[in-house]
C-alpha cells in the first residue's frame, strides 16, 4: 500500500499538559492550533481542511460537535473550511492524524491542520475514570467493574505469568519516562522518581500502582500537514510521513485470542513498516502508548523492537532509555508528559517531529532518521502507527 501523494509535517504546536485550570477546551484548542500554524509559517487562509481528535467532550463537557467549535475559534469558519471530529477513544489523535494524511493523499486537500484536545480536569478523578472507561466495552467490561487500568492490569498479570516480567521491570518503565519527562518543559510531570517510589505507591489495580498509570490531564496539540512537494516549498525542515498503519481488535479483552500483547499493534505496525519500506531496527526513537506501564512493555514487543517477553528485561537493561538502542517515550510518554486522551496521538507525533528535526533539547536522541508513534484506543480495540522520516 502506498499513498497517492506523499505528505509531510510542516508545523507543530501544543499547550503544556497538566491541570490547566484557567483555560477552557476552546482556549487550549486554539492555543495549540495557532502555535502549529505559526510554526508552519503559513497563512491560515491556506488551510483546506481541519481534523480534530477528541475522545469525549460529550461526557467531560456535555459538548459534542467540537469540530465546528474549534474551526470557529481558529477563525476558519469564514471560508467554511471543512472541519471533522474523529473518535477512537484515546487513539482519537492518532486517527485524526491519519485521516488528515489520507485527505491530502487523496488530492482533496493540500494543507490540513489536525489537532487533538481533551479537557479532563473539569470533573472529579472518579468521574474521569468512569468516562475514560467508555473506551472499554460498557456492556461487558465497565458494567462488570472494569476500569481501563484494571484491564491493563489483567494483561500485566498474564504477561508476568507467561514471560516472567517482573513488577520492578514495569516500574522501571515509569522511572525512565519520568526521567525523560523531567527534560520536557511541556510535560505534566517534570520530576524524576525512583523505583522505590513506584513500588511503594498506592495500588490502582494490582499489580499496577499510581505510578504505573497515566494521569488525568488537560491539553491540546496540533500539526500542520502539507503535500510533500508543497511542504518543501513552504518550509526548510519538513518531516515526511513514511508510513501509516491502523489495526483493530475486539473492544473487550475477553474476546481476544491473546492477553499479553495487542494484535492491532502488530497489524498496524506491519502496514506502516511495509509502506515505509523499513524494518523495526531502523527506528531510532518511538513514542508508544504507556497509559499503563505494561502498555509500553507490550508495545516495544509488538512493534518488533524486542522479542516477545523481552520487553521487561530490555527496559531493565536500559535499551529503551535516551542513550539506549531505541529511545522510547523521550517526551516522558503518557505517564509523565500527561494523557489528555484525544491530544495524546498528536503530542506523540510532535515529539517525533522534534526529534527528527533535532530540536528536542536536552532529551535529543543522536541523529535519528526514522521515528515511530503508536497510539492505542482503550485497551487495544484500535491502534494507529505512524512512521516519520527526516528528509
Amino acid at each position: 500500500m502506498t499513498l497517492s501523494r506523499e505528505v509531510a509535517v510542516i508545523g507543530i504546536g501544543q499547550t503544556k499538559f497538566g491541570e490547566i485550570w484557567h483555560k477552557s477546551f476552546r482556549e487550549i484548542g486554539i492555543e495549540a492550533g495557532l502555535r502549529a500554524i505559526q510554526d508552519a509559517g503559513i497563512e491560515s487562509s491556506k488551510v483546506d481542511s481541519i481534523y480534530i481528535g477528541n475522545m469525549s467532550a460529550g461526557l467531560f463537557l456535555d459538548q459534542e460537535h467540537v469540530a465546528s467549535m474549534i474551526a470557529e475559534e481558529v477563525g476558519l469558519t469564514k471560508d467554511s473550511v471543512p472541519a471533522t471530529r474523529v473518535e477512537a477513544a484515546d487513539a482519537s489523535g492518532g486517527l485524526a492524524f491519519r485521516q488528515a494524511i489520507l485527505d491530502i493523499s487523496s488530492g482533496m486537500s493540500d494543507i490540513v491542520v489536525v489537532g487533538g484536545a481533551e479537557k479532563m480536569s473539569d470533573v472529579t478523578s472518579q468521574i474521569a475514570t468512569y468516562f475514560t472507561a467508555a473506551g472499554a466495552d460498557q456492556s461487558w467490561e465497565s458494567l462488570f467493574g472494569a476500569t481501563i487500568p484494571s484491564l491493563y492490569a489483567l494483561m500485566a498479570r498474564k504477561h508476568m505469568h507467561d514471560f516472567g516480567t517482573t513488577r520492578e521491570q514495569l516500574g522501571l518503565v515509569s522511572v525512565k519516562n519520568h526521567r525523560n519527562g523531567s527534560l520536557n518543559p511541556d510535560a505534566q510531570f517534570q520530576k524524576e522518581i525512583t523505583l522505590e517510589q513506584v513500588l511503594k505507591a498506592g495500588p490502582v489495580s494490582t499489580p499496577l500502582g499510581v505510578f504505573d498509570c497515566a494521569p488525568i490531564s488537560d491539553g491540546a496539540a496540533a500539526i500542520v500537514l502539507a503535500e510533500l512537494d508543497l511542504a518543501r516549498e513552504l518550509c526548510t525542515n519538513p518531516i515526511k510521513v513514511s508510513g501509516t498503519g491502523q489495526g483493530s481488535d475486539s473492544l473487550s479483552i475477553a474476546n481476544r485470542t491473546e492477553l499479553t500483547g495487542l494484535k492491532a499493534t502488530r497489524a498496524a505496525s506491519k502496514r506502516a513498516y511495509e509502506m515505509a519500506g523499513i524494518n523495526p531496527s531502523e527506528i531510532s526513537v518511538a513514542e508508544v502508548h504507556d497509559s499503563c506501564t505494561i502498555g509500553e512493555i507490550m508495545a516495544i514487543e509488538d512493534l518488533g523492537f524486542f522479542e516477545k517477553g523481552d520487553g521487561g528485561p530490555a527496559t531493565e537493561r536500559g535499551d529503551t532509555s535516551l542513550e539506549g538502542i531505541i529511545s522510547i517515550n523521550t517526551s516522558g510518554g503518557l505517564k509523565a508528559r500527561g494523557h489528555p486522551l484525544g491530544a495524546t496521538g498528536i503530542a506523540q507525533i510532535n515529539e517525533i517531529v522534534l526529534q527528527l528535526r533535532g530540536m528536542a533539547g536536552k532529551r535529543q536522541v543522536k541523529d535519528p532518521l526514522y521515528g515511530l508513534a503508536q497510539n492505542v484506543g482503550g485497551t487495544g480495540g484500535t491502534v494507529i502507527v505512524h512512521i516519520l522520516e527526516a528528509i
Partner: protein
Amino acid sequence: MAVARYWRQQEQRYSLAGSKCAICNGSFFPKRTICPTCHRRSIGKMEKFLFSGKGKVVTYTIVHDPIISYADQSPYVLAVIALEEGDLVLGQIVDCDPRIVDIDLDVEMVFRRLSAEGASGTIQYGFKFRLMDVGSS
C-alpha cells in the same frame, strides 16, 4: 436512566447465554449475530447457547481504584475466566480473600448484583464467579 439497554441483555447477564454456530460448533460469549469464522454462511444459523458457568482463572487483578458504581465494594477482584466450553469472559471473583486468587484456579458462576442506577433506578443483576471449594458442585 437506561432501562431498555440493560433489560435487553438480561438473559445474557443472568445465565451466561451466548451463541453457538450451527456450522462450526464454535461457542461465543457475549451473543453474536454472525460467526467470526463462518461469516455469511452462519447468518441465521447462530443458536442460543447456555454456558455452564464453570471455568478457570486466566488472569486477575484486585481493583483498588474502582469504577464509580462499585465504590462501595472496593477492593474487588476482576478476572478473565476461561469457560469450560472454551470461550473467555470477564467477571468479578467474589466471596474470598482477594489474596488467595490465582491463575488456573477453578471457578463457578454465581448470580449477583452488578450495579444500580442510583438509589431509585433499576438494579442490574448478572454473573460473577466464586472459587470452587467444599460445598460447590
